[in-house]
Protein backbone atom coordinates (compact mmCIF):
# COMPACT_ATOMS: atom_id res chain seq x y z
CA UNK A 1 0.00 0.00 0.00
CA UNK A 2 1.26 3.48 -0.84
CA UNK A 3 -0.16 6.79 0.37
CA UNK A 4 0.69 10.44 -0.14
CA UNK A 5 0.16 12.52 2.98
CA UNK A 6 0.72 16.06 4.09
CA UNK A 7 2.58 16.16 7.37
CA UNK A 8 0.57 18.25 9.84
CA UNK A 9 3.13 18.50 12.61
CA UNK A 10 4.34 21.91 11.65
CA UNK A 11 3.28 24.64 9.26
CA UNK A 12 5.84 23.58 6.68
CA UNK A 13 3.43 20.79 5.62
CA UNK A 14 5.85 18.40 3.92
CA UNK A 15 4.40 16.03 1.34
CA UNK A 16 5.14 12.51 2.53
CA UNK A 17 5.10 9.33 0.53
CA UNK A 18 4.38 6.39 2.82
CA UNK A 19 4.71 2.80 1.67
CA UNK A 20 3.42 -0.06 3.81
CA UNK A 21 4.94 -3.45 3.05
CA UNK A 22 3.74 -5.99 5.62
CA UNK A 23 5.07 -4.80 8.98
CA UNK A 24 7.48 -2.38 7.36
CA UNK A 25 6.57 1.25 6.81
CA UNK A 26 8.75 3.46 4.64
CA UNK A 27 8.44 7.25 4.67
CA UNK A 28 10.03 9.63 2.17
CA UNK A 29 9.59 13.37 1.62
CA UNK A 30 9.96 14.30 5.28
CA UNK A 31 12.32 17.11 6.24
CA UNK A 32 12.79 16.02 9.84
CA UNK A 33 12.62 12.83 11.98
CA UNK A 34 9.26 13.92 13.38
CA UNK A 35 7.87 13.74 9.86
CA UNK A 36 8.91 10.10 9.60
CA UNK A 37 7.14 9.23 12.87
CA UNK A 38 4.07 11.14 11.71
CA UNK A 39 4.01 9.25 8.39
CA UNK A 40 4.36 5.90 10.12
CA UNK A 41 1.72 6.68 12.71
CA UNK A 42 -0.72 8.26 10.27
CA UNK A 43 -1.06 5.11 8.20
CA UNK A 44 -1.12 2.70 11.15
CA UNK A 45 -2.94 4.56 13.93
CA UNK A 46 -3.55 8.26 13.23
CA UNK A 47 -3.58 10.58 16.24
CA UNK A 48 -4.65 14.16 16.88
CA UNK A 49 -4.37 16.71 19.64
CA UNK A 50 -7.88 17.86 20.54
CA UNK A 51 -8.37 21.41 21.79
CA UNK A 52 -11.59 22.80 23.21
CA UNK A 53 -13.02 24.75 26.14
CA UNK A 54 -14.43 24.02 29.58
CA UNK A 55 -16.85 26.25 31.44
CA UNK A 56 -15.55 28.02 34.54
CA UNK A 57 -18.44 27.56 36.94
CA UNK A 58 -17.63 30.46 39.26
CA UNK A 59 -17.07 33.05 36.53
CA UNK A 60 -19.80 34.53 34.37
CA UNK A 61 -19.45 33.47 30.72
CA UNK A 62 -15.79 32.60 31.10
CA UNK A 63 -14.34 29.53 29.44
CA UNK A 64 -10.93 28.00 30.01
CA UNK A 65 -9.24 26.58 26.95
CA UNK A 66 -8.01 22.98 27.23
CA UNK A 67 -6.16 20.37 25.20
CA UNK A 68 -5.33 16.71 25.29
CA UNK A 69 -1.94 16.47 26.97
CA UNK A 70 -0.87 13.95 24.33
CA UNK A 71 -2.49 13.21 20.98
CA UNK A 72 -5.41 10.77 21.04
CA UNK A 73 -6.58 8.31 18.41
CA UNK A 74 -8.30 10.15 15.59
CA UNK A 75 -11.28 7.81 15.96
CA UNK A 76 -11.71 8.96 19.58
CA UNK A 77 -11.97 12.70 18.87
CA UNK A 78 -15.72 12.93 19.40
CA UNK A 79 -15.61 10.73 22.51
CA UNK A 80 -13.02 13.11 23.93
CA UNK A 81 -15.22 16.10 23.01
CA UNK A 82 -18.18 14.56 24.84
CA UNK A 83 -16.13 14.15 28.01
CA UNK A 84 -14.77 17.67 27.75
CA UNK A 85 -18.26 19.06 27.24
CA UNK A 86 -19.46 17.46 30.49
CA UNK A 87 -16.61 18.93 32.51
CA UNK A 88 -16.51 22.18 34.43
CA UNK A 89 -13.87 23.78 36.64
CA UNK A 90 -13.68 26.37 39.34
CA UNK A 91 -11.30 29.29 39.03
CA UNK A 92 -8.48 29.91 39.65
CA UNK A 93 -7.07 27.71 36.93
CA UNK A 94 -3.42 27.64 35.84
CA UNK A 95 -1.92 26.60 32.52
CA UNK A 96 -1.14 22.89 32.78
CA UNK A 97 -3.74 22.09 35.46
CA UNK A 98 -5.25 18.68 34.85
CA UNK A 99 -8.97 19.09 34.23
CA UNK A 100 -9.78 15.44 33.42
CA UNK A 101 -7.60 12.38 33.77
CA UNK A 102 -7.21 9.61 31.25
CA UNK A 103 -9.71 10.45 28.58
CA UNK A 104 -9.03 7.97 25.76
CA UNK A 105 -5.46 7.70 27.04
CA UNK A 106 -4.69 11.35 27.64
CA UNK A 107 -5.24 13.88 30.38
CA UNK A 108 -7.15 17.02 29.53
CA UNK A 109 -5.15 20.04 30.68
CA UNK A 110 -5.83 23.76 30.88
CA UNK A 111 -4.06 26.02 28.38
CA UNK A 112 -5.08 29.36 29.88
CA UNK A 113 -4.86 31.03 33.28
CA UNK A 114 -8.17 32.07 34.78
CA UNK A 115 -7.70 34.14 37.94
Amino acid sequence: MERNLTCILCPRGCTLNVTVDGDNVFVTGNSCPRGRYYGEEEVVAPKRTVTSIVRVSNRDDVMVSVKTETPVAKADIFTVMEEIRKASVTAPVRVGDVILTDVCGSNIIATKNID
Partner: protein
Amino acid sequence: MAAAVAAFDSGITDVVIIDREKEVGGILRQCIHNGFGLHKLGRELTGPEYANHYKLEVEKRGITVYADTTVLSVTPDKVVTATNTSGILKLQAKAVILAMGCRERSRGALNIPGTRPSGVFSAGCAQKLINCEGYSVGKRVVILGSGDIGLIMARRMSLEGAKVEAVCEIMPYSGGLTRNIVQCLEDYGIPLYLSTTVAEIHGNERLTGVTIAEVDDRRQVKPETKRYIPCDTLLLSVGLIPENELTRGAGIGMDPITGGAVVDENRMTDVSGIFACGNVLQVHDLVDYVSDEAEIAGKGAASYVKGLDKAENRVKAVAGNGVRYVLPQRVNTRGGDTDIFLRVTAPFGKVKFTVKSGDNVIATAIKLRATPGEMEKITLKADKLRTANGDIRVDLEEM
Protein backbone atom coordinates in the same frame (compact mmCIF):
# COMPACT_ATOMS: atom_id res chain seq x y z
CA MET B 1 5.10 41.63 24.47
CA ALA B 2 7.92 40.09 22.45
CA ALA B 3 9.06 43.56 21.37
CA ALA B 4 8.91 44.86 24.93
CA VAL B 5 10.95 41.92 26.19
CA ALA B 6 13.53 42.40 23.44
CA ALA B 7 13.83 46.13 24.15
CA PHE B 8 14.20 45.41 27.85
CA ASP B 9 16.87 42.79 27.21
CA SER B 10 18.71 45.27 25.01
CA GLY B 11 19.14 47.51 28.01
CA ILE B 12 16.10 49.79 27.80
CA THR B 13 14.26 48.89 30.97
CA ASP B 14 11.80 51.79 31.05
CA VAL B 15 9.25 50.06 28.82
CA VAL B 16 5.45 50.09 29.06
CA ILE B 17 2.95 47.97 27.15
CA ILE B 18 -0.47 49.45 26.41
CA ASP B 19 -3.23 47.01 25.45
CA ARG B 20 -6.94 47.57 24.93
CA GLU B 21 -7.96 44.15 26.26
CA LYS B 22 -8.25 43.29 29.93
CA GLU B 23 -5.81 40.45 29.41
CA VAL B 24 -2.67 40.67 27.30
CA GLY B 25 -2.12 38.20 24.48
CA GLY B 26 -4.33 39.68 21.78
CA ILE B 27 -6.04 37.39 19.33
CA LEU B 28 -3.97 34.41 20.54
CA ARG B 29 -6.26 34.13 23.54
CA GLN B 30 -9.10 32.99 21.32
CA CYS B 31 -6.92 30.78 19.09
CA ILE B 32 -7.23 27.76 21.37
CA HIS B 33 -5.95 25.34 18.71
CA ASN B 34 -2.41 24.03 18.75
CA GLY B 35 0.40 24.57 16.26
CA PHE B 36 2.05 27.66 17.72
CA GLY B 37 5.65 27.95 18.81
CA LEU B 38 7.39 25.07 17.01
CA HIS B 39 9.89 27.36 15.30
CA LYS B 40 10.33 29.87 18.04
CA LEU B 41 10.05 27.90 21.25
CA GLY B 42 10.69 24.37 20.04
CA ARG B 43 7.43 23.02 21.37
CA GLU B 44 3.93 22.88 20.06
CA LEU B 45 1.60 25.15 22.00
CA THR B 46 -1.94 26.43 21.77
CA GLY B 47 -2.52 30.15 21.26
CA PRO B 48 -3.25 30.91 24.91
CA GLU B 49 -0.15 29.00 25.97
CA TYR B 50 2.01 30.89 23.49
CA ALA B 51 0.63 34.17 24.82
CA ASN B 52 1.19 33.01 28.36
CA HIS B 53 4.84 32.28 27.59
CA TYR B 54 5.37 35.94 26.74
CA LYS B 55 3.23 37.14 29.60
CA LEU B 56 5.53 35.32 32.00
CA GLU B 57 8.58 36.87 30.30
CA VAL B 58 7.01 40.31 30.69
CA GLU B 59 6.22 39.69 34.35
CA LYS B 60 9.69 38.33 35.03
CA ARG B 61 11.15 41.65 33.88
CA GLY B 62 8.66 43.74 35.79
CA ILE B 63 7.56 45.53 32.61
CA THR B 64 4.57 47.79 33.28
CA VAL B 65 1.38 46.80 31.46
CA TYR B 66 -1.54 49.18 31.03
CA ALA B 67 -4.31 46.69 30.22
CA ASP B 68 -7.91 47.65 29.39
CA THR B 69 -6.42 50.83 27.94
CA THR B 70 -6.96 52.05 24.38
CA VAL B 71 -4.45 54.24 22.60
CA LEU B 72 -6.25 57.13 20.92
CA SER B 73 -3.32 58.71 19.12
CA VAL B 74 0.40 58.68 18.60
CA THR B 75 2.08 61.87 17.43
CA PRO B 76 5.24 62.09 15.30
CA ASP B 77 7.05 63.45 18.36
CA LYS B 78 6.00 60.27 20.17
CA VAL B 79 3.34 61.50 22.56
CA VAL B 80 0.97 58.60 23.15
CA THR B 81 -2.57 59.47 24.28
CA ALA B 82 -4.62 56.64 25.73
CA THR B 83 -7.83 56.18 27.67
CA ASN B 84 -8.99 53.80 30.35
CA THR B 85 -11.46 53.80 33.20
CA SER B 86 -9.16 56.04 35.25
CA GLY B 87 -9.04 58.79 32.66
CA ILE B 88 -6.97 60.08 29.79
CA LEU B 89 -3.31 59.20 29.84
CA LYS B 90 -0.51 61.01 28.02
CA LEU B 91 2.92 59.45 27.77
CA GLN B 92 6.01 60.99 26.20
CA ALA B 93 8.16 58.21 24.77
CA LYS B 94 11.59 58.23 23.18
CA ALA B 95 10.52 55.38 20.90
CA VAL B 96 7.14 53.83 20.12
CA ILE B 97 6.60 50.31 18.79
CA LEU B 98 3.28 49.80 17.01
CA ALA B 99 1.97 46.25 17.37
CA MET B 100 -1.80 46.61 16.96
CA GLY B 101 -2.30 43.55 14.78
CA CYS B 102 -4.91 43.27 12.09
CA ARG B 103 -8.65 42.98 11.60
CA GLU B 104 -10.83 40.84 9.38
CA ARG B 105 -12.41 42.01 6.15
CA SER B 106 -16.16 42.36 6.61
CA ARG B 107 -19.11 41.42 4.46
CA GLY B 108 -19.49 45.01 3.35
CA ALA B 109 -16.02 45.04 1.87
CA LEU B 110 -17.01 42.01 -0.24
CA ASN B 111 -20.31 43.44 -1.47
CA ILE B 112 -22.14 40.14 -1.27
CA PRO B 113 -25.67 40.80 -2.54
CA GLY B 114 -28.78 39.81 -0.62
CA THR B 115 -30.41 40.56 2.71
CA ARG B 116 -28.78 41.53 5.98
CA PRO B 117 -29.84 38.89 8.52
CA SER B 118 -28.05 37.89 11.71
CA GLY B 119 -25.88 34.81 11.53
CA VAL B 120 -23.20 36.32 9.27
CA PHE B 121 -20.01 36.49 11.31
CA SER B 122 -16.41 37.18 10.63
CA ALA B 123 -14.66 33.94 11.54
CA GLY B 124 -12.75 35.62 14.33
CA CYS B 125 -15.92 37.06 15.88
CA ALA B 126 -17.48 33.59 15.95
CA GLN B 127 -14.24 32.23 17.36
CA LYS B 128 -14.38 34.72 20.22
CA LEU B 129 -18.03 33.98 21.00
CA ILE B 130 -17.37 30.24 21.08
CA ASN B 131 -13.92 29.96 22.60
CA CYS B 132 -13.89 32.83 25.06
CA GLU B 133 -17.53 33.25 25.98
CA GLY B 134 -18.80 29.71 25.48
CA TYR B 135 -21.77 30.31 23.19
CA SER B 136 -22.81 28.35 20.15
CA VAL B 137 -23.31 30.55 17.09
CA GLY B 138 -25.20 28.14 14.85
CA LYS B 139 -25.86 24.61 13.68
CA ARG B 140 -25.51 24.56 9.90
CA VAL B 141 -22.57 26.47 8.60
CA VAL B 142 -21.08 27.67 5.34
CA ILE B 143 -17.64 29.23 5.43
CA LEU B 144 -16.45 31.68 2.81
CA GLY B 145 -12.69 31.84 2.54
CA SER B 146 -10.17 29.12 3.11
CA GLY B 147 -7.62 31.14 5.00
CA ASP B 148 -6.35 29.52 8.17
CA ILE B 149 -8.96 31.08 10.44
CA GLY B 150 -11.73 29.75 8.19
CA LEU B 151 -10.24 26.27 8.21
CA ILE B 152 -9.65 26.27 11.95
CA MET B 153 -13.24 27.42 12.51
CA ALA B 154 -14.57 24.68 10.23
CA ARG B 155 -13.04 22.14 12.58
CA ARG B 156 -14.03 24.02 15.70
CA MET B 157 -17.68 24.24 14.63
CA SER B 158 -17.65 20.53 13.73
CA LEU B 159 -16.23 19.62 17.12
CA GLU B 160 -19.03 21.57 18.78
CA GLY B 161 -21.60 19.57 16.87
CA ALA B 162 -22.40 21.90 13.98
CA LYS B 163 -22.64 20.65 10.41
CA VAL B 164 -20.22 22.51 8.16
CA GLU B 165 -21.77 22.24 4.72
CA ALA B 166 -19.00 23.79 2.69
CA VAL B 167 -15.90 25.91 2.65
CA CYS B 168 -15.90 28.14 -0.44
CA GLU B 169 -12.78 29.76 -1.80
CA ILE B 170 -13.01 32.30 -4.61
CA MET B 171 -9.43 31.72 -5.68
CA PRO B 172 -8.41 28.54 -7.51
CA TYR B 173 -6.20 27.64 -4.54
CA SER B 174 -6.54 27.78 -0.77
CA GLY B 175 -4.98 30.61 1.16
CA GLY B 176 -4.50 28.37 4.17
CA LEU B 177 -1.71 26.05 5.20
CA THR B 178 -1.92 22.55 3.71
CA ARG B 179 -1.76 21.00 7.17
CA ASN B 180 -4.92 22.85 8.08
CA ILE B 181 -6.74 21.56 5.01
CA VAL B 182 -5.80 18.04 6.11
CA GLN B 183 -6.54 18.26 9.81
CA CYS B 184 -9.45 20.70 9.70
CA LEU B 185 -11.35 19.73 6.55
CA GLU B 186 -10.32 16.24 5.45
CA ASP B 187 -10.46 14.83 8.98
CA TYR B 188 -14.09 15.95 9.25
CA GLY B 189 -15.19 15.26 5.69
CA ILE B 190 -15.86 18.96 4.95
CA PRO B 191 -15.86 19.79 1.23
CA LEU B 192 -13.64 22.61 -0.04
CA TYR B 193 -14.95 24.25 -3.20
CA LEU B 194 -12.30 26.24 -5.05
CA SER B 195 -13.13 29.07 -7.51
CA THR B 196 -16.46 29.30 -5.69
CA THR B 197 -18.03 32.16 -3.80
CA VAL B 198 -21.16 33.09 -1.91
CA ALA B 199 -23.29 34.88 -4.49
CA GLU B 200 -26.30 35.74 -2.33
CA ILE B 201 -27.31 35.89 1.30
CA HIS B 202 -30.88 34.95 2.23
CA GLY B 203 -33.10 35.41 5.29
CA ASN B 204 -34.82 38.41 6.84
CA GLU B 205 -34.18 37.81 10.53
CA ARG B 206 -31.68 34.99 10.96
CA LEU B 207 -29.77 33.68 7.97
CA THR B 208 -31.76 30.92 6.22
CA GLY B 209 -29.34 30.01 3.47
CA VAL B 210 -26.78 31.13 0.94
CA THR B 211 -26.46 30.75 -2.79
CA ILE B 212 -23.01 29.62 -3.78
CA ALA B 213 -21.66 29.72 -7.30
CA GLU B 214 -18.51 29.08 -9.25
CA VAL B 215 -16.57 32.04 -10.59
CA ASP B 216 -14.73 32.51 -13.86
CA ASP B 217 -11.11 33.56 -14.11
CA ARG B 218 -12.16 37.20 -13.66
CA ARG B 219 -13.81 36.16 -10.39
CA GLN B 220 -17.28 36.85 -11.79
CA VAL B 221 -20.12 34.56 -10.77
CA LYS B 222 -21.18 31.99 -13.37
CA PRO B 223 -24.97 32.21 -13.03
CA GLU B 224 -25.60 28.68 -14.31
CA THR B 225 -23.62 27.22 -11.39
CA LYS B 226 -25.71 28.86 -8.66
CA ARG B 227 -26.70 26.46 -5.93
CA TYR B 228 -28.70 27.08 -2.74
CA ILE B 229 -27.45 25.75 0.57
CA PRO B 230 -29.72 26.07 3.62
CA CYS B 231 -27.73 27.21 6.64
CA ASP B 232 -28.10 29.41 9.73
CA THR B 233 -24.52 30.61 9.89
CA LEU B 234 -22.09 32.10 7.40
CA LEU B 235 -18.53 32.61 8.53
CA LEU B 236 -16.33 34.99 6.58
CA SER B 237 -12.62 34.34 6.49
CA VAL B 238 -11.78 36.53 3.58
CA GLY B 239 -8.61 38.27 4.46
CA LEU B 240 -6.92 40.28 7.13
CA ILE B 241 -6.14 43.97 7.02
CA PRO B 242 -3.40 45.53 9.17
CA GLU B 243 -5.05 47.90 11.59
CA ASN B 244 -3.13 51.07 10.92
CA GLU B 245 -5.39 53.91 12.05
CA LEU B 246 -2.85 55.07 14.65
CA THR B 247 -0.05 54.72 12.12
CA ARG B 248 -1.83 56.93 9.61
CA GLY B 249 -2.69 59.37 12.37
CA ALA B 250 1.01 59.75 13.08
CA GLY B 251 1.62 60.60 9.42
CA ILE B 252 3.70 57.48 8.82
CA GLY B 253 4.36 56.42 5.20
CA MET B 254 2.48 53.29 4.16
CA ASP B 255 3.10 50.47 1.70
CA PRO B 256 -0.10 50.02 -0.33
CA ILE B 257 0.63 46.33 -0.91
CA THR B 258 1.29 45.20 2.67
CA GLY B 259 -1.21 47.67 4.10
CA GLY B 260 1.40 48.42 6.75
CA ALA B 261 4.11 51.00 7.25
CA VAL B 262 7.23 51.26 5.13
CA VAL B 263 10.09 50.18 7.42
CA ASP B 264 13.82 49.63 7.47
CA GLU B 265 15.59 46.48 8.63
CA ASN B 266 15.10 47.52 12.27
CA ARG B 267 11.38 47.92 11.54
CA MET B 268 11.60 51.68 12.00
CA THR B 269 9.03 53.61 9.97
CA ASP B 270 9.76 56.82 8.12
CA VAL B 271 8.90 58.73 11.31
CA SER B 272 12.06 58.61 13.33
CA GLY B 273 11.68 56.58 16.54
CA ILE B 274 8.38 54.94 15.63
CA PHE B 275 8.63 51.23 14.87
CA ALA B 276 6.10 48.65 13.73
CA CYS B 277 6.02 44.87 13.89
CA GLY B 278 3.71 41.90 13.62
CA ASN B 279 0.43 41.85 11.75
CA VAL B 280 0.09 45.62 11.83
CA LEU B 281 3.13 45.71 9.56
CA GLN B 282 2.36 42.75 7.32
CA VAL B 283 -0.11 39.94 7.79
CA HIS B 284 1.85 36.89 8.86
CA ASP B 285 0.87 33.24 8.67
CA LEU B 286 2.97 32.11 11.64
CA VAL B 287 3.00 33.68 15.07
CA ASP B 288 6.58 32.52 15.44
CA TYR B 289 7.60 34.97 12.72
CA VAL B 290 5.54 37.67 14.41
CA SER B 291 7.64 37.18 17.51
CA ASP B 292 10.85 37.27 15.45
CA GLU B 293 9.79 40.52 13.87
CA ALA B 294 8.83 41.94 17.25
CA GLU B 295 12.29 41.15 18.57
CA ILE B 296 13.89 42.97 15.64
CA ALA B 297 11.69 46.00 16.38
CA GLY B 298 12.36 45.80 20.13
CA LYS B 299 16.12 45.71 19.58
CA GLY B 300 15.87 48.40 16.94
CA ALA B 301 13.94 50.68 19.29
CA ALA B 302 16.50 50.10 22.02
CA SER B 303 19.35 51.02 19.64
CA TYR B 304 17.45 54.10 18.59
CA VAL B 305 16.92 55.24 22.18
CA LYS B 306 20.60 54.69 22.88
CA GLY B 307 21.42 56.81 19.85
CA LEU B 308 23.23 53.96 18.07
CA ASP B 309 21.11 53.93 14.92
CA LYS B 310 21.98 56.82 12.64
CA ALA B 311 19.68 55.61 9.87
CA GLU B 312 22.44 55.88 7.29
CA ASN B 313 23.35 53.77 4.25
CA ARG B 314 19.77 52.76 3.53
CA VAL B 315 18.80 51.53 0.08
CA LYS B 316 15.35 50.57 -1.13
CA ALA B 317 14.30 46.94 -1.41
CA VAL B 318 11.68 46.37 -4.10
CA ALA B 319 9.61 43.47 -5.42
CA GLY B 320 10.45 42.22 -8.92
CA ASN B 321 8.97 39.46 -11.09
CA GLY B 322 6.62 37.08 -9.32
CA VAL B 323 7.06 38.86 -5.99
CA ARG B 324 4.12 40.71 -4.44
CA TYR B 325 6.05 42.61 -1.82
CA VAL B 326 9.25 42.60 0.14
CA LEU B 327 9.80 43.71 3.70
CA PRO B 328 11.73 45.60 4.99
CA GLN B 329 11.38 48.13 2.22
CA ARG B 330 14.63 49.85 3.21
CA VAL B 331 17.86 48.05 4.09
CA ASN B 332 21.11 49.15 5.69
CA THR B 333 23.97 48.05 3.44
CA ARG B 334 26.48 48.48 6.27
CA GLY B 335 24.59 46.44 8.86
CA GLY B 336 24.74 42.74 9.76
CA ASP B 337 23.07 39.78 8.09
CA THR B 338 19.58 40.88 7.11
CA ASP B 339 16.51 38.76 6.46
CA ILE B 340 14.20 39.82 3.67
CA PHE B 341 10.60 38.59 3.91
CA LEU B 342 8.37 38.35 0.88
CA ARG B 343 5.25 36.87 -0.59
CA VAL B 344 4.89 35.56 -4.14
CA THR B 345 2.12 36.62 -6.51
CA ALA B 346 0.67 33.15 -7.27
CA PRO B 347 1.31 29.50 -6.43
CA PHE B 348 4.52 28.21 -8.00
CA GLY B 349 6.39 24.90 -8.00
CA LYS B 350 10.15 24.98 -7.68
CA VAL B 351 11.44 28.53 -7.86
CA LYS B 352 14.67 30.45 -7.57
CA PHE B 353 14.77 33.86 -5.91
CA THR B 354 17.51 36.24 -6.93
CA VAL B 355 18.34 39.36 -4.95
CA LYS B 356 20.24 41.89 -7.00
CA SER B 357 21.54 45.41 -6.79
CA GLY B 358 21.82 46.43 -10.39
CA ASP B 359 23.56 43.43 -11.96
CA ASN B 360 25.27 42.53 -8.73
CA VAL B 361 23.78 39.36 -7.22
CA ILE B 362 23.53 39.64 -3.45
CA ALA B 363 21.73 36.42 -2.65
CA THR B 364 19.86 33.56 -4.26
CA ALA B 365 17.51 31.01 -2.73
CA ILE B 366 15.78 27.95 -4.14
CA LYS B 367 12.41 26.78 -2.78
CA LEU B 368 10.63 23.56 -3.70
CA ARG B 369 7.35 25.40 -3.81
CA ALA B 370 6.08 28.90 -3.10
CA THR B 371 2.51 29.99 -2.49
CA PRO B 372 1.02 33.40 -1.65
CA GLY B 373 -0.23 31.91 1.62
CA GLU B 374 3.27 31.26 2.92
CA MET B 375 5.78 33.98 3.63
CA GLU B 376 9.29 33.38 2.30
CA LYS B 377 12.51 34.48 3.95
CA ILE B 378 15.85 35.14 2.25
CA THR B 379 18.94 35.99 4.24
CA LEU B 380 21.26 38.65 2.87
CA LYS B 381 24.77 38.14 4.17
CA ALA B 382 26.44 41.26 5.58
CA ASP B 383 29.50 40.99 3.34
CA LYS B 384 27.38 40.61 0.19
CA LEU B 385 25.07 43.39 1.29
CA ARG B 386 28.05 45.77 1.49
CA THR B 387 28.57 45.30 -2.24
CA ALA B 388 25.13 46.72 -3.01
CA ASN B 389 25.53 49.88 -5.03
CA GLY B 390 21.92 51.04 -5.11
CA ASP B 391 18.40 49.77 -4.63
CA ILE B 392 18.00 46.02 -4.35
CA ARG B 393 15.37 43.99 -6.11
CA VAL B 394 14.04 40.46 -5.60
CA ASP B 395 12.96 38.43 -8.62
CA LEU B 396 11.41 35.00 -8.86
CA GLU B 397 12.22 32.57 -11.62
CA GLU B 398 10.36 29.29 -12.15
CA MET B 399 12.60 26.26 -12.39
